[in-house]
């Protein structure tokens, strides 16, 4: 449609001259109205990018009521508090405290709860809500498919988990390095940096997949959140009972979803720790990680492939 209205002019008159005849700047508001769009479209990649952006804003409570902002903000702040405290203590009394500071692998023990909380709140909020409010039907009527939709959602959940798995250790690494308490030499610094990256990928990746699998199983956000917060720690209780009390093989510890990724992080950093899964060789832990990841992805796909979209 062509411009239906002439430009509206603000000023003393349409010529741009004031009463004295001097030239004045004239502001014009063009009421373009609804019209054809002839520009480029970004296709599926643009759709995924938009989905990720929107999902991140949704998870962080941006554009939503205050309570959603508070939950996300609290979880993120809680994950950074130990790092800030350790860095602060090290800055004030560096010599005496160095031995008492946690290693990068040990740090996850301080923020484990925030990681579970982030997974527990984010995945249901991003997956269950779309199914309940019919937004999934709108998404699938766009260039997105079920696969690209799930990829976009997985990226958003993973990024949210990186806030609590990658951010705090990186903060510690940078802060300790600035205080001359970091790794010795550039090569070691790079090694630690990559170990932190791999650690956050291991934890974030597994909990992204597991939390999405659980969220795909229920349309109710609260039910899915409760299930995630129960199943991950609950797996530790169950495997402990099976291995310690019932005397079953230590391989059952590989079903311990709470400690498996953290024990792997210790191995990535070359530390041992006192994990129940330590009796298993590294390759079995990797296989177990891949198994739980693949099983979760398969379950999500199974649920969404069969899902009748409400339109």
């Amino acid at each position, binding site marked *: *449609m062509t411009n239906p209205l002439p430009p509206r002019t603000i000023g003393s008159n349409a010529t741009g001259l004031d009463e004295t005849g001097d030239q004045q700047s004239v502001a014009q508001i063009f009421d*373009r*109205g*609804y*019209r*054809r*769009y*002839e*520009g*480029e*479209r*970004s*296709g*599926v*990649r*643009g*759709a995924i990018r*938009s*989905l990720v*952006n*929107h999902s991140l804003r949704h998870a962080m409570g941006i*554009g*939503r*009521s205050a309570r*959603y902002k508070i939950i996300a903000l609290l979880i993120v702040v809680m994950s950074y508090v130990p790092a800030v405290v350790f860095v602060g203590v090290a800055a004030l009394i560096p010599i005496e405290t160095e031995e008492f500071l946690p290693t990068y692998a040990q740090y996850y023990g301080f923020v484990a709860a925030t990681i579970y909380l982030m997974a527990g709140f984010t995945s249901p909020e991003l997956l269950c*809500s779309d199914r*309940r*409010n*019919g*937004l999934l*039907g*709108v*998404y*699938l*009527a*766009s*260039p*997105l*498919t079920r696969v690209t939709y799930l990829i976009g959602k997985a990226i958003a959940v993973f990024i949210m988990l990186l806030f609590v798995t990658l951010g705090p250790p990186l903060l510690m690494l940078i802060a300790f390095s600035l205080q001359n308490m970091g790794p010795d030499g550039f090569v070691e610094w790079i090694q630690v940096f990559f170990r932190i990256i791999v650690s956050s990928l291991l934890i974030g990746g597994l909990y992204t997949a597991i939390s999405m699998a659980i969220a795909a199983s229920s349309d109710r956000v609260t039910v899915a959140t409760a299930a995630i917060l129960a199943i991950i720690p609950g797996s530790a209780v169950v495997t402990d009972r099976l291995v310690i009390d019932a005397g079953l093989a230590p391989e059952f510890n590989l079903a311990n979803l709470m400690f498996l990724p953290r024990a792997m992080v210790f191995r990535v950093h070359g530390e041992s720790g006192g994990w129940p899964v330590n009796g298993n060789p590294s390759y079995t832990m990797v296989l177990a990680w891949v198994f739980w990841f693949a099983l979760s992805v398969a379950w999500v796909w199974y649920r969404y492939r069969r899902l*009748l*979209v*409400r*339109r």
Partner: protein
Amino acid sequence: MPDRKWHSCPMVGTEPRLPSTTAAQGPELISARRVSKAYGSVEVLADVTFDIQPGITGLLGSNGAGKTTMLGMILGLHPIDGGTLAVYGHNPWSAGTDIRGVMGYAPEHHTLPADLRANDFVRHVAELHGLPRSEATTRASDALWLVGLGEERFRPMGTMSTGQRQRVKLAQAIAHDPSMILLDEPTDGLDPVQRDSMLDLIRGIADDFKINVIVSSHLLHEVERICDGVVIIDRGRTLASGTIDAVRGNDEIAVIVEIDSSAVQAVAVVDSLMRAGWTASSSGRRITIGGDDDSVFDAARDHCVAVGVGINRLQRRRLSLEDVFLEKLG
């Protein structure tokens, strides 16, 4: 109404550009031939055949007739089990991503995200269809102004009335400048005044912006008011399709006679008329005679008198879609 071509909506990146529908493929936007679809043992569509031309087309049928399933297949969301379906000459199942990129869709349900502002929602859907953020933001406002929600566009959708939410759904369907929009029950939940307003809005969008519209509804008289063409589906089968006039039979000049006797007597009147050289047929107590000049009325009167039946109604044929629907149902 001229068809809008694909090349007005180029895709970039890895997206293939679909070619325009060529003259050799015909002017149809959508062409369905003996389409069938079942979910498990439940047969939703059994034998659906129609062509949809540019303009506004009503996809009509009672609740559960298979309209929403048909829309889903047009969007390429699920495959057909049998027959052929072409949208702009392409199989929507294999070319679904590209087809959906230039289509708008307004779902039937009203439960949109309650805490999301209308402007954010419309902008997000426009971005999903590939518009840059700045353009999506501008067009979201423009679309909401167009549907009459300019002042309300920053309100959370949960605080809006059903009528306003229907308008938001229309706005998100058109914000990215689609070549075709699919509206699923767009007047559902609206009072008569809102309904008229919504129908006028849809007509205006089709006329002013040359956007092809497919309206799914079970309210035949409403759709009859704004549609150029119609597809009537019942229990998974096509009852009728074509232009409104063709479906109503109003392009065939005829006189309708409704007698006060039985169907057998109606057949006798038809026989009498045909022996006298008239074109006539009967359905129950209703007799249809070709032509509409005064001589037809005289012939109808005379032959009814000759057979000995009374006349309840004698008029030029002017069927509504509802008449057609009921007639086809038998």
